[in-house]
């Protein structure tokens, strides 16, 4: 076992649920989500669009849209730098604020719009540093410049006084990283940080994040829908479907032996995986990709049982009766009747 696995989790989420009131009734965006992240570990959260990945991460940060009358349940135990264990979902707003940007950092998907266009990037970093590290203006500015150097932005001394629109997308995402890392967080939540970027830039950013994580030992919740990225960078994976985690496992186990039919389908429909799996390919005749039929059901009319049942090739009657439990076998937890039966057997 690696040393990470043995340490106690830095973040332990239990039964997290978030719902929003809309004109048509409540949407259960996230339901009964549980996972843990240990110090230095990267947990990847994958799933289709709308499966609740962003809502999960925003709820943890306390940034979910409050105007939609959000309802949050469950616990999220976070070990602070001073060793205290706090429930993030239960903190008064002022304490949450003290954690945000300080011990909890966050990076968003859209580097082009996530920075304030009328403030220099230096000011945007320094602002957070002044607040949390109580540095004065000058020191904060110097700190901001150091952070830019840390994220490998060339000519940082000059860039620190520039505005976001003067930077390219990749550079802006570096600035976002510098911003999130400015106060040395112990947990970094990255919501699809590279989706908007080109592959070559993505590789740069991911390498940078990997390096920083190694240097600081922070934990990371990495939201993505790119399974390639997951395979390359994550330690553990949680797969979400329709607001629930359907499978979570160490990354090697998940790719080697996916247990949930959805996970299996997901991997099978990747051309790269298909190619590797398939025996020698005849030129001109390609193997069909194994597609998952159908589409995600509407959040307003969730099926009574397993949400994946309508698309599942192994569906049986019991699947429609009730939502299966997230059952654990070793490091792995799966929400599927088939898996539960297998375990029992």
């Amino acid at each position, binding site marked *: 076992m690696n040393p990470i696995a043995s340490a106690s989790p830095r973040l332990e989420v239990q039964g997290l649920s978030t719902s929003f009131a809309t004109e048509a009734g409540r949407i259960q965006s996230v339901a009964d989500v549980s996972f843990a992240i240990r110090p230095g570990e990267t947990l990847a959260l994958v799933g289709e669009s709308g499966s609740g990945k962003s809502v999960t991460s925003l709820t943890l940060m306390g940034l979910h849209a409050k105007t939609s009358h959000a309802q949050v349940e469950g616990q999220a135990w976070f070990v602070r730098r001073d060793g205290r264990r706090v429930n993030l979902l239960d903190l008064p707003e002022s304490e949450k604020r003290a954690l945000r940007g300080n011990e909890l950092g966050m990076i968003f998907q859209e580097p082009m719009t996530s920075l304030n266009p009328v403030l220099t990037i230096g000011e945007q970093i320094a602002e957070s540093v002044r607040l949390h590290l109580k540095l004065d203006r000058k020191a904060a500015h110097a700190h901001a410049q150091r952070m830019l150097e840390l994220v490998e932005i060339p000519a940082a001394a000059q860039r620190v006084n520039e505005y976001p629109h003067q930077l390219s997308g990749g550079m802006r995402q570096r600035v976002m990283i510098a911003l999130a890392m400015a106060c040395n967080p112990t947990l970094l939540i990255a919501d699809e940080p590279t989706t908007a970027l080109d592959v070559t830039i993505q590789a740069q950013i991911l390498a940078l994040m990997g390096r920083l994580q190694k240097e600081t030992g922070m934990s990371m919740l990495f939201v993505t829908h790119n399974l*390639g990225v997951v*395979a390359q960078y994550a330690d553990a994976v949680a797969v979400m479907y329709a607001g629930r985690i359907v499978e979570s496992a160490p990354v090697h186990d998940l790719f080697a032996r996916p247990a949930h039919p959805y996970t299996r389908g997901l991997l099978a429909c990747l051309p790269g995986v298909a190619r590797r799996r398939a025996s020698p390919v005849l030129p001109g005749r390609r193997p*069909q990709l194994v*597609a*998952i039929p159908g*589409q995600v059901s509407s959040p307003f009319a969730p099926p009574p049982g397993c949400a994946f049942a309508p698309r599942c090739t192994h569906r049986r009657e019991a699947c429609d009766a009730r939502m299966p439990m997230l059952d654990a076998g070793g490091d792995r937890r799966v929400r599927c009747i088939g898996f539960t039966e297998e375990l029992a057997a």
Partner: protein
Amino acid sequence: MTSATLASENLLEIRNLKKYFGKGSHPVRAVDDVSFDIRKGETLGLVGESGSGKSTIGRLLTRLVDPTGGAMSYQAQGSDAPPQDLAQLSQSQFRPLRSKVQIIFQDPYASLNPRMRIREVLAEALDTHGLAKGAARKPRIEQLLQQVGLRPEHAERFPHEFSGGQRQRIGIARALAVEPQFIVADEPLSALDVSIQAQVVNLLGELKEQLGLTLLFISHDLDVVEYLCDRVVVLYLGRVMEIAPTQALYASPQHPYTRALLAAAPIPDPAQRRVVPLLQGDLPSPANPPSGCVFRTRCPLAEERCASADMQLREVQPGHWHACWRNDL
């Protein structure tokens, strides 16, 4: 390189194609001196990073934008008529050809008029070219829907009643409606979820086989391109870096950029983690491209001579072209 007649296997020969946006001293050189062939019945992949001019080439071929220069010779399949230079045709001269050359777009949400029923969408395509009139109309629409895996009753629905994958299918049906020979697919997958992408990839593969289509498949997903395409053109900053059969390209990329691109794509297999040779820096501005080889500013192997000479494509293996001095990669 312009030829009076096309090589027999070619549907389209693109020569020195240019598209500059904007006037003044620094126009955006979206496509700059691009030449390649598209063979009858093949699937040609067009890859490159954002802003490399992929979509612009697709739009030039369908004359949604007018070229700044160059030629696009087209010889209709099964016809002895002399080839036509699509670049020289006026919009009205090009109109009849539009039934031969079609395009599918990236964004399945923006590419369908929200106010038109699917039946109307398809009927418009048929009407424009005077196809399947009268009693033949309804069965033809049903056939098209079936072809793309939708049900006939879907014809009466509006686009917003469909999921992204289904909408993409409608987009494909619309392109197929006019019985084209050649379809440009401009990143038809990038807006779709992974689980849906496979459905569309399979559909495109099937249709191509069934209808004998020629496909220009634009994508930045190298895995899909490898899976679907026969040959691949690699673009960088509006220029062609490499052209090769798919297997040759993925097995032995000749251009440093192609290599970097392939190396940067994460492999969905935790067993194959790798330290990637990273490209430094960002894409230069297409309004102000570097002199000589446009890739040299990010090239790990750049030398002095890269800055001066204009790089031309060279054929290193039969059918394998690239634009770099080096042969030792």
